[in-house]
C-alpha cells in the first residue's frame, strides 16, 4: 500500500508540474513582460517544414468565397508546405473580440482590420482615446511594411491616406467602399416610371409613389443598428456643407448637435424609417439582401460591398445604387461617400512573419488583386481596371473619394449613449426607438456630449 501511495504521489506531482509549465509557456506575455515571439504555432517559416499560416477575417460572403475558393487553394498549391488556417466570424463585436485576444497573444499571423487607420486623436480632439490599431502600432505589435516591394503596387495617395501612420506603412488596404447610398431595383422603378432621384423632393415622390402602389419603399436592417445609420450618413454627407468642419466645431463648441443642419438630418432619417418594411428594427443584416433580392422592398440601405451578395441571391436582379439625396440641390447629392475598407496587417511577433509577408505579396500581385476587388466589389487602391458592371455603374458618383462621417468623427471618452460611437443615433427616434422628435434626440445628444467635455 505504501509503495502504491508513493507512486500515486509522484504521478500527481508530475501532473501538477506539467500543468504549471504548460501554463507558463503557452501564455507568453502577461501584460508587463516582453513576449519572446515563439508563442502560437510551433511551425517554422523557413525551409520546407510544414507551416500553418493563421489568417483572421470577418464574415463577408463574396470576399470569403474568393479567399476560400480561389486565393487560398492557389497559394497552397504554389507553396505546398503552407496551410492557411482562415478563420471567419461575424463582423460585429465577435470579430473585435477575436482580433484582440489573438493579436495580443501572438496567436495570428495576418489579421484583417475593419477599416483603414482612421480615428487617431487630433490636436482638436483633446483627451480622445487611441483606437486599437494605434495602440497596437505604438506597442510594436504590427509589422512595419514600409520597405516591402509590394507596397509600391498601391496608389501612393491611398498608401498615404489609408495605410500609413507616423510615416510608416502598417497595413495593406484592399479597397474602398461606399455606403451612403441606396440599392434600388431598376425593374420596380421602371414599372412605376420612376427615375433615380437627385433631390430630396424627387426622393419623396419616389417614396410616396411606391407606397401608394403597395410596394415597401425601403428595406432597413435595424437589429444591428449600424445598417440604419449607413443611410443616415448619406444624409449627413449631403446636408452638411463640410462634415469635418462640423465635427471639429463640436469639439470647440462652434457647432452643436442641435444646429439646423443636424436636426434636418434626423428629420429626414425619421421620414425614411417611416417608409421601411414592417418589423425593420428586428430585421437582421443577413436577411436584408434576401428581402431586396426577392423584390419585397424597392430599395435597401446597405454598402456597396454587399452588391455581390445581392446579385448572388438573384442573378436576374437588375440593381443599381444612388446617393441618398438629402439636399434640395442636385449638386450636393452628386457624390457617394465611403471609407477605406479592410486592411491586412501582419503581426510583428508572428512566428510565421516571413510567410505572412509572402501572403501579402501574393495578394498584391496585379492579377490576384484585380480578382480580389472584382470579387469583393471594392473600388481599387491599385491602378487596375475593375471588371464589374455594378462598380462601373456607380463610377459617376465617385468623382472624388469622400470620407463618410464615421471615418472623420472622433468621439469623447465616456460619452453617453445618445452621442457615443461614430455615427448619429437615429435608432432612438420613432418608429425605431422611443423618442418622438428629432429635437429631443438632438438635445439629449448635445447634453451627453457636453457632459463628456474634457475637464
Amino acid at each position, binding site marked *: 500500500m*505504501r509503495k502504491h501511495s508513493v507512486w500515486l504521489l509522484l504521478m500527481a506531482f508530475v501532473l501538477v508540474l506539467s500543468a504549471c509549465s504548460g501554463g507558463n509557456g503557452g501564455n507568453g506575455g502577461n501584460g508587463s513582460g516582453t513576449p519572446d515571439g515563439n508563442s502560437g504555432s510551433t511551425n517554422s517559416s523557413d525551409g520546407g517544414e510544414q507551416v500553418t499560416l493563421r489568417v483572421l477575417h470577418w464574415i463577408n460572403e463574396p470576399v470569403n468565397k474568393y479567399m476560400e475558393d480561389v486565393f487560398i487553394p492557389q497559394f497552397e498549391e504554389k507553396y505546398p508546405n503552407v496551410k492557411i488556417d482562415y478563420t471567419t466570424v461575424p463582423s460585429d463585436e465577435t470579430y473585435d*473580440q477575436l482580433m484582440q485576444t489573438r493579436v495580443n497573444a501572438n496567436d495570428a499571423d495576418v489579421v484583417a482590420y475593419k477599416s483603414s487607420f482612421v480615428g487617431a486623436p487630433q490636436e482638436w480632439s483633446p483627451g480622445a482615446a487611441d483606437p*486599437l490599431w494605434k495602440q497596437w502600432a505604438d*506597442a510594436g505589435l504590427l509589422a512595419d511594411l514600409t520597405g516591402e516591394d509590394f507596397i509600391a503596387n498601391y496608389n501612393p495617395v491611398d498608401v498615404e491616406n489609408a495605410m500609413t501612420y507616423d510615416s510608416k506603412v502598417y497595413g495593406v488596404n484592399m479597397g474602398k467602399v461606399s455606403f451612403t447610398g441606396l440599392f434600388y431595383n431598376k425593374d420596380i422603378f421602371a414599372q412605376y416610371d420612376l427615375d433615380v432621384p437627385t433631390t430630396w423632393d424627387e426622393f419623396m415622390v419616389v417614396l410616396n409613389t411606391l407606397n401608394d402602389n403597395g410596394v415597401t419603399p425601403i428595406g432597413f436592417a435595424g437589429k444591428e443598428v449600424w445598417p440604419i445609420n449607413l443611410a443616415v450618413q448619406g444624409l449627413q454627407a449631403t446636408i452638411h456643407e463640410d462634415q469635418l468642419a462640423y465635427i471639429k466645431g463640436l469639439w470647440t463648441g462652434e457647432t452643436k448637435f442641435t444646429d439646423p443642419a443636424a436636426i434636418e438630418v434626423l428629420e429626414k432619417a425619421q421620414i425614411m424609417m417611416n417608409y421601411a418594411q*414592417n418589423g425593420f428594427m*428586428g430585421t437582421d443584416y443577413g436577411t436584408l439582401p434576401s428581402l431586396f433580392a426577392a423584390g419585397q422592398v424597392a430599395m435597401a440601405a446597405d454598402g456597396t460591398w454587399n452588391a455581390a451578395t445581392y446579385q448572388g441571391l438573384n442573378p436576374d436582379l437588375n440593381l443599381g445604387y444612388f446617393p441618398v439625396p438629402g439636399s434640395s440641390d442636385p449638386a450636393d447629392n452628386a457624390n457617394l461617400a465611403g471609407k477605406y475598407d479592410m486592411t491586412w496587417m501582419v503581426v510583428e511577433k508572428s512566428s510565421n512573419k516571413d510567410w505572412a509577408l509572402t501572403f501579402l505579396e501574393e495578394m498584391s500581385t496585379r492579377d490576384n488583386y484585380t480578382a480580389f476587388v472584382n470579387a469583393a466589389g471594392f473600388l481599387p487602391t491599385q491602378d487596375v481596371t475593375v471588371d464589374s458592371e455594378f462598380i462601373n455603374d456607380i463610377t459617376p458618383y465617385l468623382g472624388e473619394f469622400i470620407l463618410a462621417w464615421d471615418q472623420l468623427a472622433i468621439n469623447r471618452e465616456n*460619452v453617453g449613449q445618445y452621442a457615443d460611437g461614430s455615427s448619429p443615433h437615429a435608432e432612438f427616434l420613432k418608429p425605431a426607438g422611443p423618442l418622438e422628435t428629432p429635437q429631443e434626440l438632438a438635445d439629449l445628444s448635445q447634453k451627453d456630449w457636453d457632459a463628456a467635455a474634457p475637464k
Partner: protein
Amino acid sequence: MYPFGKGLSRYVPLLLLMIPVALYVLLAVGPSMVTIVFSLTDATGIPGTSWKFIGFDNYKEFFTASNASDQVRAISRSLYFAFAVVLIQNAVALLIAIIVNKRLRGDVFYRATYFLPVVLGVTVSGLIWQMLFNPMGGPAQKLLNVFGTQSNFFGSYDIAFELIIFVQIWMYMGYSMTIFLAGLQAIPKDLYEAGYMDGARGWASFRHITFPMIAPAITVNILLSIIGGLQTFDIIYVLTGGKFETSTLAFNVFAAAFATTTSDFGRASAIAMIQFVFVFAFAIVAMLYFRKREVEL
C-alpha cells in the same frame, strides 16, 4: 480503516489534497487576484505597453464619468433581470417539479424534455428564439398579426429586455426543476401519511410538509438564480448585443474587456470587480436570510 499507514504516509491525503488546491489557486484564485491588481492600473492589456498604478481612479471614473447614468441604468436592469429570474424561474420550476414528481405515464420523458434547454446552451437557444421571434414572418409575428398588431421583438426598446428574461428562464428552468425534484424525492412518504391522518390535504400538505422539507433546495435554487441572473451576459450578447436598453452590468464588463475599439484592461477589470462585489453582496445577504428561514421552518 485509515489506508495510509504511519509516518510520512499519513500526510499523503494532505499532499493529494494540495493538487486540486494548487490547480484552483493557479487557474481561479490567481487570475482573480490579477484582476484586482489590474483594476488599480491603467494597463491596456496590450503586451509590451507600460502601465502604472493609478489607485482607485478606474473605480472613481465608473461612478462619476459623464456616462455614469448609463451604468446606473445597466445596474438597475441587472437587478430587474435577477429579480424576475429568481421569482418566475423558481416558481415555474417548483410547479413543474411537483407535477413530474407524480407517478405519471412518461414522467422520465417529461423530465428530460424540461431539462433539454439546459443542454442546448446559449447559442442554440438564442437561435431558436430568434427564429420564433423573427419579425419577418416568424410564428410569433404571425400570431400578433392575427390580432392586428406587430412587433420588432428583439429589436424593440419596449419588450426586448423582457424577451431576454423569458429566454433565460426557458433555458435554465430545467436546472432549477431538477434541484427541486431531488428535494421532493427526498421527502419521506410517511410524513405525508402522518399529515393525511391529521387532515392535511392539498395546499395544507404543501404548505406544512413539502415547503419546509424542500427549504434547502429553495435556498440553493434562489442563490444560483441570483448569481446566474446577475452574471448573465451571454444570452444578451446573442440576442441583442446589448442594444435596445438591454445591457446589464455583466454585459458591460464583457463589452469593456472585449467588444471595444480601444483596449483598456484596467477599466474593464475595475468594472469586473464592481460586478463581483455586487453579486457577492446580494448572494451573501440572500444566503444568510434563507439559511435563517430554513432553521425557522
